[in-house]
């Protein structure tokens, strides 16, 4: 736990990357952690092949969920959405170098990813009917 608040986590928590709305987003996803009140929205632009072209996000959360969202958002562009959907929680924690996080904080670290894979809750912003039917 002692390195949970290490510098680069804190730095991302205080200066989250890719913050805000994305005007030409094709999808908006939401995730919330009801027990602590954290919630976030992810704006994605995804092309026909399922490749993520752009991402922004915004929300309320603790340092861990904010930093994890910021860090993951930096890894999205150029990768396929399917890849993220099919990853396990453990894979994601490994990506974040947070494998040893306590069980009570895992939910925080995984909130952004939870949003990414909440396929059925996707709101389609501009068309992309094909995806909507899935």
């Amino acid at each position, binding site marked *: 736990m002692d390195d*949970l*608040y290490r510098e680069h986590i804190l730095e991302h928590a205080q200066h989250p990357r890719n913050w805000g709305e994305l005007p030409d987003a094709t999808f908006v996803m939401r995730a919330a952690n009801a027990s*602590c*009140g954290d919630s976030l929205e992810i704006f994605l632009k995804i092309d026909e092949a399922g490749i993520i072209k752009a991402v922004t996000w915004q929300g*309320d959360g603790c*340092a861990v969920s*904010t930093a994890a969202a910021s860090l993951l958002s930096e890894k999205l562009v150029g990768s396929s959405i399917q890849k993220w959907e099919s990853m396990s929680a453990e894979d994601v924690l490994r990506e974040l170098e947070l494998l040893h996080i306590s069980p009570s*904080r895992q939910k*925080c670290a995984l909130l952004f990813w939870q949003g990414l894979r909440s396929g059925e809750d996707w709101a389609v912003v501009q068309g992309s009917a094909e995806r909507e039917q899935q």
Partner: protein
Amino acid sequence: MKVHETQTQVPILQRQIHGKKLVYLDNAATTQKPESVITAISDYYRTHNANVHRGVHTLSDESTERYEQARQKIAAFFGARADQLISTRNSTEAMNLLVQMWEKFLRPGDVIVVTMQEHHSTLVPWQMVSQRTGCEFIVLPMDDQSTWPINAFAELLQEKKDRLRVVATAAVSNVTGVVAPLEKIDAQLRKWGVRKNVLVAVDAAQSAAHMPSRLDRWPVDALTFSGHKMYGPMGIGGLVVSERLAQEIAPVLYGGGMIAEVRTQETSFHEDFAERFTAGTPDVASLVGLQAAIEFLEEIGWSELQAHEHDLVQYAYEQLQQVPQVRLIGPEPGAEFASRVGSVTWTYEGVHAHDVAQILDRSGVAVRSGHHCTMPLHTEQDWVATTRASFAVYNTREDIDQLIAALEQVQTIFGV
């Protein structure tokens, strides 16, 4: 027993957390257990364990005797007789049970009232039964976030007194420490002459360890409690009902123990109240443990305990007020004990409650962060999450000093 002697009675308080002495300030979630409670439970299993009522052998007799003694003690603590006590796993189950038993009296258009600061264990069961029965479910917002909304309640009565059937509320809020004005609620109902049409149900989960919570003193029909929040074991709680209510309700759990006669097509129930409402094997060991917890409380005595805990709440409030980033919520503790009971809760500017709690844990200080199962209140007040320090009789001013010292770490780490 003097208040300061209680610390040595609770073994877990000797634990080290991250190399520091544990400062346990999460007592509203669950209190720690005195040695006497732990011993009572293990003694029961070591020497007296047998199923109750169902055997003629010695152990069964011993177990039954302990079971009945414990029930009497617990009921008396809540100002009732054993035949007014239905044991449950916890306060949540007790409230759900009350709702299920009361459902048959509810009609479409009836009014059920709770407040915004109710714990989900009160709010949700009444909300769900309102949906099932077509009742109007009213959640009163808090008076300027601090006090129980007695004025709004009075106004509501003017309009809806004829349809009002249920008022359910916490005797003490687990977030703001607000004490419900039970006498005033009762007086309002009497003023309009509707008291007898209304079920007044009180969630005593957060009052039981901090102030007398008694059916023979409170003008209410039922109360619920959790043993684990009053120095007893987890897994035991109860619903205590008035004599009037005991006459009106019927069991909703069926099985062994609670029956008189069973035939293939019909069953009659046990005449005895306690039996009728105890389907299946009760948790005797936990009841015995809870009896020991009540004896622990009685050895201290309410006046010493209340004075000490009020001092802790006041001291914590004052100390936290000195921290510039802290915004305290709920009423300021006044001179009166009942002005705020059991806990202090705050938000920390610029830092999420989870991060505050995690950093405090590094210093061995255990507090709770989040919604505290009061999401409507947090949403209404626009708090993302809050941090709460809640007290028990074994806490000291030094514990609060540790809390304040640990809070400085938050500033160091987050630089706010």
